[in-house]
């Protein structure tokens, strides 16, 4: 779903189903809570269907269409009857928007998949393009840089929206790294099937991040973020890594990705 | 013969070709009408604007362009070009009436002029063009009894004499002219030449003069009255 200029006014109190994504659900729930906050602040009524698991991308990209469809059916079932489905991930949203229709072409669920695809959005582009959010009330002083995750950028056209919203965060200075649009080397199973090549790619990305002078790295996909955080930390870098939703929602108490929780004084 | 049959058969099978499916007619039609596809706006110019575009595009890709007002100025322009580049006053010309008719003896008496196909020792060739395309500063030359192709490639320096009336905006206009001038068949070789020879094969550094000419000099004759 490319970001188009909607001259339509934002919907009133839409019922939005949060597609948490398996990575966020299991590895970093704070992103899910940030997404809920941003959606509610924008005037949405948020539900989180409990019967959701994964979008099916791992099976799909491994060539296992049958299992991909099987997993995708749980998504079709879980997200019935909602106005919108929003995911804090360009790759998961892209999977549903761009690939579900192809996955179910000629199958009984074809129409349902098309319908779901047409109401599914990545979080930041939903906020900007549908809910017409132009700014957030948030204070986060830092020199920051933004990595354009591939699916979000190339399948869904997400580039300008996160930068616009980040521009409204008080105290945040956004600098562009070199080659911001180049892949970070995660690629789902790629990073463990071809670890040396993945390492070469993420090393170049880490260099570009460090050379940007930023102290904070953001992106819209947790897989990319975990990959880049892991590499930066292995290199001894001090750059903090967070999901863009967490920054927009002002979640400063949350430790950055790969950092331990702060000890709370008793 | 059998491979031909096998290959065509394999193609027809893969495409699910049916007799009478209209495919052959579609092909006939496209070949017959040879319609233009999208032609960029860039070359849709006339007169001086068109010539200017041609000049600037040609210079952009390392050709040199010299504009003269009349035919009579061409020989001297060529002689001066050789002097400027420390080249001996010797050229191999295309045996073409447009070039032969220029006043070489009168206006450039010290210039040694020979005709014919290029000899490997020739340093400079002088040829006419069939057309020139402003879109990308491209010259169009073709083989023929009066225009040996070797003149375009063997010598290190290639001088091309172009008339304003030969300059068009887009490649499609060249095709129209080529078809009109050669209704039975295209000449053996049609060269579209855009700047001198170059290579980036050593560390992606651009170097001129790989195998073809190192220098391409275009003498553009303005015309008085109608082109």
């Amino acid at each position, binding site marked *: 779903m490319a970001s188009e200029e909607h001259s339509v006014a934002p919907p009133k109190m839409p019922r939005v189903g949060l597609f948490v994504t398996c990575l966020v659900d299991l590895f970093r729930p704070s992103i899910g809570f940030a997404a809920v906050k941003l959606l509610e602040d924008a005037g949405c009524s948020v539900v989180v269907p409990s019967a959701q698991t994964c979008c099916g991308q791992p099976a799909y990209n491994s*060539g296992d269409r049958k299992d991909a469809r099987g997993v995708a059916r749980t998504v079709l079932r879980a997200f019935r009857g909602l106005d919108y489905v929003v995911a804090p991930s360009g790759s998961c949203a892209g999977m549903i928007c761009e690939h579900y229709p192809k996955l179910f072409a000629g199958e009984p669920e074809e129409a349902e998949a098309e319908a779901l695809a047409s109401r599914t959005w990545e979080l930041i582009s939903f906020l900007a393009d549908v809910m017409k959010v132009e700014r957030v009330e948030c204070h986060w002083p830092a020199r920051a840089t933004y990595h354009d995750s591939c699916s979000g950028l190339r399948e869904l056209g997400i580039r300008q929206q996160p930068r616009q919203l980040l521009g409204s965060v008080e105290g945040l200075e956004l600098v562009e790294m070199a080659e911001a649009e180049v892949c970070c080397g995660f690629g789902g199973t790629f990073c*463990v099937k071809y670890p040396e090549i993945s390492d070469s*790619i993420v090393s170049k990305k880490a260099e570009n991040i460090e050379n940007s002078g930023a102290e904070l790295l953001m992106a819209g996909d947790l897989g990319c973020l975990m990959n880049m955080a892991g590499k930066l930390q292995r290199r001894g870098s001090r750059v903090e890594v967070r999901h863009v939703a967490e920054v927009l929602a002002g979640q400063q108490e949350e430790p950055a990705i790969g950092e331990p929780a702060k000890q709370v004084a008793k | 013969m059998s491979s031909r049959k096998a290959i065509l058969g394999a193609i027809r099978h893969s495409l699910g070709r049916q007799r009478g499916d209209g495919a052959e007619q579609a092909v006939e039609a496209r070949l017959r009408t040879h319609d*233009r596809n999208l032609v960029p706006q860039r070359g849709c110019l006339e007169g001086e604007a068109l010539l200017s575009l041609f000049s600037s595009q040609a210079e952009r890709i390392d050709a040199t362009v010299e504009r003269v007002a009349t035919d009579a100025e061409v020989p001297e322009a060529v002689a001066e070009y050789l002097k400027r580049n420390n080249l001996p006053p010797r050229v191999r010309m295309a045996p073409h009436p447009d070039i032969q008719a220029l006043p070489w003896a009168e206006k450039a008496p010290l210039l040694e002029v020979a005709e014919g196909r290029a000899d490997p020792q020739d340093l400079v060739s002088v040829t006419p063009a069939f057309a020139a395309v402003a879109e990308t500063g491209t010259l169009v030359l073709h083989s023929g009894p009066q225009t040996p192709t070797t003149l375009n490639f063997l010598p290190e320096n290639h001088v091309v004499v172009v008339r304003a009336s030969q300059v068009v905006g887009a490649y499609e206009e060249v*095709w129209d002219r080529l078809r009109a001038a050669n209704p039975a068949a295209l000449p053996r*070789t049609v060269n579209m030449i855009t700047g001198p020879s170059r290579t980036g094969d050593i560390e992606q550094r651009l170097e001129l003069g790989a195998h073809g000419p190192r220098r391409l000099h275009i003498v553009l004759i303005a015309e008085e009255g109608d082109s």
Partner: protein
Amino acid sequence: MQSTSHAFKQNAHRALHDPMLQKAMGHVRSGFIDKRVQAAARLPEFDQLRDQAKAIKDHTLAHLDHYLERYEAKVLEMGGKVHWCATAEEAREAVLSICRSLDARTVTKGKSMLSEEIALNEHLEANGIEPVETDLGEYIIQLRKEPPSHIIAPAVHVNKEQVEADFRRVHKNLPPERSLSEAAQLVDEARQVLRQRYLEADVGITGANFLIAETGTSVIVTNEGNGDLTQTLPKAHIVVASLEKVVPTLEDCATILRVLARSATGQEFSSYTTFSTGPRRPEDPDGPEEYHVILLDNGRSSMLGTEFQDMLRCIRCGACMNHCPVYHAVGGHSYGWVYPGPMGAVLTPSLIGVEEAGHLPNASTFCGRCEAVCPMRIPLPKMMRHWREREFEQHQAPAKARLAIEAWAFVAKRPRLYRWATSLLIGALGRAGRRRGRFRELPLAGGWTAHRDFPAPSGRSFQARWAEQQRRGRASR
């Protein structure tokens, strides 16, 4: 060419630890990419032209049999000959046979990936004929006895100092004290050395970027002029071209030409775009006396009508590999055969089988940059996925990977089982990683932790916390 694609991982390992290669690949990352962007910016209609180029090729492929017949008829009418070859072997034999009929001793060659595909040079050499590559990049790798590593810049993996060393080693007749430290000097030397070879050659062999059905014409696109000297000076000009090079008309060719050079090197048009139609005419003072077209199938006809048909639109510009992070990391030789990068990942399994070349479509992050820059709008990641599907269906993917995916899917289709199993897993990881927030080592995740730390999960899933929050929320009302 013998394939080492099955050894892609080992090839890549070597490439990643080769500092000279890594330095050379740095040039690819910047040069080509920036130039393409600039060229596209200077032509407002660029994207529309890409759409039209795609449409032209799609139309042609859907009518390929008829267009090939019309093309052949025109070539014959112009006095040329067409040799239809189903296989690489037939093509090699056809070329050899023509060379023999002319008692050819040396053959000059313009750059032709197809001639690599059919291993033409080795065949000629084995039969006492010397092929001389004239494209500077091809010449360099011929001296080094290496295959090309990029489809338009074959020596992109070679540094200037390496070229100097090769020239000194091979050009023994030239004064040893000569300076060769500058690129210009290397180019000049190649020009000098090859000039004599052009003049002596008995036969000239080129590829073809396009075959135009309307006029029976072959088109080559070069910058050096080597292809032109190759095809004009000798007694015979042989064109080696595969079936899908056909385009209908001169107008169609012009449209695709407008996107070719811009996508490849960022030039608006190459220095020499040459249209060759038949042998020389009786009145021509120069040109070849014979003109032969080797029309090769070698697997193309069986790609038609399949999910890989789109690959036949490829015009060999190289934009995909210029933008590919995997290609940048490992270079072209790692792919192990003639065609590297994304287009190689899709085409190679079609030509030599997915059993041999399976790694190529698997070694991709699906970042999609290739598709974004392809002038012919070829959906490269989609076709790589199709290869993965074929492998999966035929049980050719590694067993461990298959098992892992099936296990994940089994659990993911059952939300309650998923909740239970994952809470165990992340609970354990969360506890183990609490102190440092990340792992330097993790069993079963060695591929990750060899090079990166692994961020620890917090220990409780979002769903669990959300459910708890909802319960507390309801309880407090």
